[in-house]
């Protein structure tokens, strides 16, 4: 058995191709299930559009984030500056492009790496058990206990050796350090219960090597959790960055991020409203699109998913007939 096949999706495929037995790759099943969820697809498009915007958005405006336009200081949106300018006369569009890029970058790195760390850590705990498990759980709980915000503040506002690093890099390191514990606990308990399942036991007694058991049986089952946690991790990191930068810890000027832009604008919401509402909207689009994707991703990666798309009635009925 090289693929874990969802029987219903298989039927869906065979119905299309005139009853021939076709084995479809898991990735295609996942892709199809994801595409069935309209909200999730819309979220994906918004996210990709923002990502693209953060990469090539700089070409939409002749200005960049370091150039001051002395004739348009603190002006609202105009043909010269599509989104207006800041109190210092810097084009807001250029700032937003830069800020979105930094925010997405922080989100992707923190989300991706923390999922990997938590998967490896949680599986290791479940796999070895006993003393190793106890010690690793102790470290994990000690880390949960530490208020991350204080560590962020110390790391980014200290004047010791850490000062030489750019603030976004420091923020990534600290966020990574404090973002993986919750998922690691979940992965641990989930894989512990999976290890007790009959098919894992059977594989063990058949002499299947541990690495293969993990890859074939554990990973597909916790995969849905991990993928979900990847998007949640991105959202969490983006939100944490905005929150920390908003109250003045975290990202520091001259680095720009969505949080810095929103935070700077709070003092003058009534006089420069666009400086506040535009970055806030972009942040909402970013976190909102990820939230929209969550459910579709969870369903797509879930091996016991009941999403069967158009095949619904007829296919299920034929299955019942054939099994009888």
């Amino acid at each position, binding site marked *: 058995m090289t693929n874990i096949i969802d029987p219903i999706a298989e039927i869906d495929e065979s119905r299309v191709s005139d009853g021939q037995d076709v084995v479809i790759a898991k990735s295609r099943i996942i892709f199809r299930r994801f595409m069935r969820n309209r909200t999730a697809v819309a979220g994906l498009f918004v996210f990709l559009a923002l990502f693209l915007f953060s990469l090539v958005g700089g070409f939409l405006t002749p200005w960049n984030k370091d150039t001051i336009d002395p004739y348009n200081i603190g002006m609202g949106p105009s043909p010269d500056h599509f989104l207006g300018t800041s109190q210092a006369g810097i084009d807001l569009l250029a700032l937003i492009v830069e800020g979105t890029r930094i925010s997405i970058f922080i989100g992707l790195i923190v989300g991706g790496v923390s999922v990997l760390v938590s998967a490896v850590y949680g599986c290791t705990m479940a796999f070895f058990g006993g003393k190793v498990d106890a010690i690793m759980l102790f470290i994990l709980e000690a880390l949960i*206990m*530490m208020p991350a915000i*204080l560590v962020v*503040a*110390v790391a980014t506002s*200290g004047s010791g*050796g850490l000062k030489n690093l750019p603030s976004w890099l420091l923020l990534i390191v600290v966020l990574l350090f404090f973002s993986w514990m919750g998922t690691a606990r979940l992965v641990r308990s989930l894989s512990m219960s999976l290890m007790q399942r009959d098919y894992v036991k059977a594989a063990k007694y058949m002499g299947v090597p541990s690495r293969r058991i993990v890859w074939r049986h554990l990973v597909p089952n916790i995969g849905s959790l991990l993928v979900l946690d990847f998007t949640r991790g991105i*959202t969490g990191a983006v939100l944490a960055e905005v929150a920390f930068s*908003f109250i003045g810890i975290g990202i520091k000027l001259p680095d720009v991020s969505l949080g810095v832009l929103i935070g700077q604008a709070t003092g003058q919401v009534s006089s420069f409203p666009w400086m506040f509402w535009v970055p806030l909207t972009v942040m909402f689009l970013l976190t909102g699109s990820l939230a929209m994707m969550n459910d579709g991703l969870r369903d797509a990666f879930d091996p016991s998913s009941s999403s069967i798309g158009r095949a619904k009635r007829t296919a299920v009925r034929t299955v019942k007939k054939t099994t009888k």
Partner: protein
Amino acid sequence: MLKYLMKRSGIYLVMIFLTTSAGYFLAVSSLKPAVLEQEKIPRPTPEQVAASFRGLGLDPAKNAWERYVDWLGNIVTHWDWGRSPNGASVNAEFGDRVLVSTRLFIASIILTLIIGVALGVYSAARQYKFQDRVITSYSYLVHILPAPIAYFLVQLGAISVNEAVGQRIFFVTGISTPGIDPGWPAFVDLVAHYAVPTFAMTIFGWAGYQIAQRQYLLDNVNADFVRTARAKGLTRNQAIRRHALRVSFIPVAQSIAFTIPAIFTGGFFAEAIFAWPGIGLWSIQSIGLQDVNVATATLAYGSVIFAIGAILADFATTLVDPRVRVQ
């Protein structure tokens, strides 16, 4: 039971010790108060700075380990958490700050818990109906809104209410008006200061509980034991209340442990936005002022709050879960 709680407390004490020590080393190695002294007018000589810090037990010439040993020795022998670079004692200010924070959070913690669990039960009982969709989508919306921005928006709303009415109904910052008469005016003033932060923290706080409670209750509503209860003649509401609710509250009770430190961190933002001089604001300010001892003391407080939350959660679990009591 008592033995189990004692054992947990012991483990948490070790953890508090370790996190606080780690925090102290991090703070000592990255916070350098001498840098800020250079901005004073007239500018003190490095010798003067070193001498004044030596008097406060913040000797920059000592290495991190020596300072750690001194600091720990003072705490263990006279419960002295050290001094700030400006000479103020950490112990003296700590109590006031904790009191301000506790006053700020206590109402919203209780309200959040009650409203969240109640809405969770309500929306689970009406799954996929209009009310459920509204309540649950609101909770998911709150999840993508960072706490400080949410508080700030509430603040903007309160200001516009004040402007619309033409007089100051709500105070959006601060803890009380100086020089207010005692009695009824003082009480009105208190309420006017409390209203906005408590409102903000409550309406943005219950989402987590609501989603969790709804999910766990839905997992149990269709369980066999609830069906049995219905078959014996209980109404649907009775069956949910007497059988499903109790079981579904167990994981929620446990999750409280992990939301109490979250309230504490949410508290940093609330105190920063609403300018309440509580412990969260103090810790952020102290880090800006390169104050090692205050930063470590507040970190220790955060760890203690977490440990209390975790022990309370264990205790709550034994209250609602008969299986734990039997063991």
